[in-house]
């Protein structure tokens, strides 16, 4: 009785001090999140209800008019469609390339270190530099790509890559994939390195072919990593900005416009801060919905990687 009485307040005291510690240690990051994430989010939702050029006290509250306009804005839907195409290309082309590179490099072992570095290089280059470089490569008058195609007699394939609305998006996506594939290659390499070597050896002893080992052992082992990679590339594709901005500026005629470049143009070239915020908020809602849904459906594959 006596002991219990004295123990209770002590424990309560310890608990509350623990709560205090938790609060104190979380406070800086919570504060940063609130200031740099939560506040801009809420404030851009608020801005999306205004007709405002971003200057002085001229804002006019117009309710959901911007959102109604967005729903009928062909350019926005075109840009969303381009974002989706980019996401599909990332999953269907970029990830298999990254996976193939990772499996081959892992198989090659130590001898492949120089290749690892080489393949990793595009990721280290600034997007602007890459954009300028590929603008030169695609140039229809001087670019090495068309010169090479013509040298092989493939004149019909030498297109106006960035200037023709039919090819501009594809040409840009190809560069985006070239730049980002190495990131996923590293991700898959990390996943593969955590696979116990015995499993592989046992399979070899049992006479399994490389093909079988890949499909039956390596790929299932990478389930969690693949899930992460898919999620990252979908979210990255929906938010994409830099190479599109540098290489085509969303053009020609909006053929390579993505949501982020459209938002930028609306705010900074057309002076429509209110409508630009609507585009930004819509982009956020789309990204968060896609993220939530895909995380929900893939939760059974959850791993740390």
């Amino acid at each position, binding site marked *: 009785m006596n002991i219990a009485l004295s123990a209770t307040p002590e424990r309560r005291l310890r608990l509350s001090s623990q709560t205090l510690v938790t609060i104190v240690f979380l406070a800086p990051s919570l504060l940063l999140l609130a200031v740099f994430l939560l506040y801009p989010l809420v404030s851009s939702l608020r801005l999306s209800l205004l007709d405002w050029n971003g200057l002085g*006290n001229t804002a006019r509250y117009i309710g959901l008019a911007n959102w109604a306009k967005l729903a009928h804005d062909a350019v926005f839907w075109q840009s969303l469609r381009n974002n989706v195409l980019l996401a599909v290309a990332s999953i269907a082309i970029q990830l298999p390339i990254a996976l193939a590179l990772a499996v081959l490099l892992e198989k090659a072992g130590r001898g492949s270190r120089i290749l690892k570095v080489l393949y990793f290089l595009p990721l280290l280059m600034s997007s602007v530099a890459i954009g300028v470089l590929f*603008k030169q490569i695609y140039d229809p008058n001087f670019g090495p790509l068309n010169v090479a195609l013509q040298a092989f007699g493939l004149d019909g394939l030498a297109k106006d*890559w960035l*200037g023709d609305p039919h090819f501009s998006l594809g040409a840009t996506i190809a560069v985006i994939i070239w730049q980002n594939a190495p990131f996923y290659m590293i991700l898959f390499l990390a996943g593969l390195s955590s696979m116990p070597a015995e499993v592989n050896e046992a399979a070899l002893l049992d006479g399994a072919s490389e093909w079988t080992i890949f499909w039956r052992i390596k790929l299932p082992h990478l389930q969690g990593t693949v899930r992460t990679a898919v999620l990252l590339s979908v979210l990255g594709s929906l938010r994409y900005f830099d190479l599109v901005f540098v290489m*085509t500026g969303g053009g020609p005629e909006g053929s390579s416009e993505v949501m982020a470049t459209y938002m930028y143009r609306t705010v900074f070239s057309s002076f429509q801060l209110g409508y630009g915020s609507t585009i930004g908020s819509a982009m956020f809602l789309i990204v968060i919905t896609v993220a939530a849904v895909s995380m929900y459906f893939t939760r059974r594959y959850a791993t740390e990687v």
Partner: protein
Amino acid sequence: MAYPAFAKARSIVSASALAFSLCAAVSTAVQAEPVKTITAWDQQTNASSSKILRDAADRFEKANPGYKVEESHVLNEAYKTKLKVSFGADQPPCVFENWGGGGLHEYVKSGQIVDLSPYLNKDPAYRNRFMKASWDVTTFDGKTYGVAAENAAAAVIFYNKEVFRKYGITPPKTWDELLHVVDVLKSHGVAAFSLANKNKWTGSMYYMYLVDRIGGPQVVKDALAGKGKGFEDPAFVEAGKRIQELVKAGAFAPGINGLDYDSGASRRLLYSGKAAMELMGAWEASTIANEDPAFSKDLDFMPFPTVPGGKGDARDLIGTVGDGFLSISTQCKYPDAAFKLIQAMTDEQAMQERASNDHKLPPVNNVKIDDPITQRLQKMLADAPSVQLWYDQALPPALGEMHKDTTQALFGLSLTPEAAAQQMQAAAKKGG
């Protein structure tokens, strides 16, 4: 138990209050000898251009003791963003460079810009030094909000004299002569024009000139004022048709809508001899002289040709008389001093330095020019019955974007001239 804690807290509060008031006392003591700072932003990043402004600021500081000019030079796109963000965040610079036209009007409508008319009315000698057309760009509803500072520029057709001589052709004065030149050059495997139209304002130059040559300078002014048929005036439709006629005739080196002017894609076509002409702002002459001095010797320029049956004067120009305009934000604490700073930045010395050291054509009447190309341009500007400001700067920003988008689509042959005109007029009606 509670009371002592409270007392302690109270003593802390009063102690800090004391400390605070001490600080305040100290800071007022410092303010007894105040330095009045005037911030001045511009986009003149190269060494000689920014030195002209700094020297002018030094002259201002010397003549007005107690003031200090804090300047910053930021390049083009970043400058536009920085300016917008600073005004949006209520921390605008005192004096800042802008492009006049629809963009400046946007700031004026929001009450962000000081009306300079009272200052200018007091000093007619200063006002009359400037080319008359320079004031049109910064005057809205009879009030003037900016002073032209940097450079007068008009779009002209630069051409390669050597190529013209080689194929026995002369600079075209009319549309039909132009089509003939296109054909001759094409038969020799040379494109008539190089155009880098990823940037859109580059192709817009053809459209603006065609509208002027076909319908005269009043058409776009009426369209802006919402008079008549606006942007559906036949002159706009006709201009679109002429552009597509040129495209279909193979007048342009391939890839127009994907080529980037900023990375020199259009000039490279000139240097390599793959294209013979480029319609571009007069600044191109000095860019080319820097990039390829040898080529520069073969370079000449001509005005845009006339169109049969058109109402426009062959001497009309598209361009800007000033390029960089200096304005004062209403949040500036010392507008009187800021105007003096603007005067220093546009005084005789600064203007002459712009001409002599910077190869510019300052927007004033009394400056001496040595460079022959700039001299000819100065005369063209002086003789021009009309100098129409670039549409993308004259129009309200959203409408300017629409103009650039539709014009790019005209070049891409994916939009009919009628549809382009309709889209423009619909957007103009909505108030841009």
